[in-house]
């Protein structure tokens, strides 16, 4: 048994066919078909990853010609003791927690309502989904217009509904409101994602289960908590996983909306990383930062997937 996956693939192919088929052997075809993709993934995913790890031990600066020196773990030490890093981690945690909270709440509620199968629910579902498919940078940029204190639609609607004067607050300019301004736009964009997954979960529950519960005279409330929620939970957890990963690496939307400001209140880790790498050109330092972020997401996601699998097995 050779170690390389393609040989293993070819070996796993039923021999009955291989002997009967004319032309290229299955083994050759497996090589030909999988080869280009593996080469491309190695070149653009794996090789850069290894290079990043290598760079992270150096003091390389991409805008200087001077040769880099190996400084080993100094970058890592500096990052982990830097207060700016922890502030951006905190900003990311705030963003992650509240976007997921609102998206799960609203997304599940919408899915639950759509599952009542009212007339035209398909059309309205498609309309709700639209924001999610659009370019976050372009849409995020336009939201800065909606958030303008005097002329923006958002502030006007708030004034219309609550009576708070439109020009008295600036969602993007104020330290207190800016973290919420990005939460609102992200929730607007990505609630449909959670909704779609929940809807798939709700639709996967067979009617017969509810019929059985009805025979047992379980109240609707009880059915909801003991049937609907546990059956949808794996789907909901999957949605949270996807949103968690996506929002952990969030860049385009927030950079266009607030640019990390005011001050550094909405500087999420990827915005911080971009500044280190492409504005201050501390390539080695930024590489170490990137490795730390990757290990964090990968670690958290692995633990989460284990939990998800446990829920699925139940």
């Amino acid at each position, binding site marked *: 048994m050779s170690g390389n996956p393609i040989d293993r693939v070819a070996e796993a192919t039923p021999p009955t066919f291989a002997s009967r088929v004319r032309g290229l052997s299955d083994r050759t075809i497996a090589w030909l078909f*999988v080869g280009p*993709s593996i080469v491309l993934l190695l070149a653009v995913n794996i090789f850069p990853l290894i290079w990043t790890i290598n760079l992270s031990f150096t003091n390389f600066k991409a805008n200087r010609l001077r040769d880099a020196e190996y400084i080993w773990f100094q970058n890592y030490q500096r990052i982990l003791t830097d207060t700016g890093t922890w502030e951006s981690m905190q900003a990311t945690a705030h963003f992650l927690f509240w976007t997921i909270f609102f998206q799960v709440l609203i997304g599940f509620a919408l899915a639950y309502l759509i599952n009542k*199968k009212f007339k035209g629910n398909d059309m309205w579902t498609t309309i709700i989904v*639209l924001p999610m498919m659009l*370019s976050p940078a372009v849409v995020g940029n336009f939201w800065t217009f909606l958030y303008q204190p005097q002329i923006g*639609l958002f502030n006007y609607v708030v004034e219309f509904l609550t009576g708070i004067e439109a020009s008295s607050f600036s969602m993007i300019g104020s330290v207190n409101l800016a973290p919420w301004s990005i939460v609102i736009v992200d929730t607007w964009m990505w609630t449909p994602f959670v909704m779609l997954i929940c809807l798939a979960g709700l639709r996967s529950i067979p009617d017969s289960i*509810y019929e059985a519960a009805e025979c047992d005279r379980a109240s609707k409330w009880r059915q909801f908590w003991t049937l609907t929620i546990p059956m949808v939970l794996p789907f909901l957890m999957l949605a949270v996983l996807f949103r968690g990963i996506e929002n952990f690496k969030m860049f385009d939307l927030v950079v266009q909306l607030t640019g990390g400001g005011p001050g550094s209140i909405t500087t999420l880790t990827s915005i911080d990383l971009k500044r280190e790498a492409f504005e201050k050109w501390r390539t080695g330092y930024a590489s170490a930062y990137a490795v730390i*972020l990757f290990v964090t997401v990968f670690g958290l996601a692995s633990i989460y997937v284990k939990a998800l699998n446990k829920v699925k097995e139940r």
Partner: protein
Amino acid sequence: MSGFSVTEPSKRQKWFAGILVITYAMVTLMPLLWIIATGFKSPEDAISYPPKVIFEPSLEGYVNLFTTRTRVTTSMEETLLPPETWYDEIARDSGTVISGPTRYGQRFTNSVIIGFGSTFFSIFFGTLAAYAFSRFRVPIKEDLLFFILSTRMMPPIAVAIPIFLMFRQLGLNDTHLGMILLYTAVNLSLSVWLLKGFIDEIPLEYEEAALIDGYTRFQAFYKVVLPQAATGIASTAIFCLIFAWNEYAFAVLLTSGSAQTAPPFIPTIIGVGGQDWPAVAAGATIFLIPVMIFTILLRKHLLRGITFGAVRK
């Protein structure tokens, strides 16, 4: 519908659910409608207080999007020839003359070239790999999903650092080829996984029959499997296209001029004293409408696409 069903929601419940969902849909649609509407406003109407819902439509935003203009004084204006085209006239009405095209058209073309180019390659290589993974039993299915997920876990900025250095070495920075390669690789994981799902659903018997009829494995692939997988390939292609179309982080870091796509460009459209909102909105409208249409076409496969095939419905 026959007889009584305990699981069928009552009429009142349906009404209630319908009203709530439609209300949400209206609210969520408002920013999008506002983009489209702002594109047709005059600059004065766009920044009026209170925001104008009813306004006199104007194409000034679109003219400003595609042209650069120079301001002319009234005395100079008298010496000019009368405006020849409708867009000349619009520019003249605001006291300017058109002096040339902007870069929007070129940036949009870049988006089209890079979007379609990368989609073609990620579908081409993706279909081949997906077929091999689907038919030549792969023992590492679960690991593969996690591996594919993990390539997408890296923040794009983190990947961009070595890619930037690599492209600089190879002279690929700010080129169409570089961006096509990069987006192809990023999309490949999605396309392999989605297409594998679609090909898995094609019964093996079709191919077996073809093989017994004397087709080679390769002929069986492109004469039997490919036509069967056409819908799946088409919807996967649209997903890849939408990703490349919307992508911003790589584009803003790796392109600056000749290969810059529209997403980094649109936010930089400025007029007198800040962003020229009708022009920005016009640019955004032209850029977003194709995706909206594709989304409507895709609605049946939407879930599969956005979850890497993890949820199939």
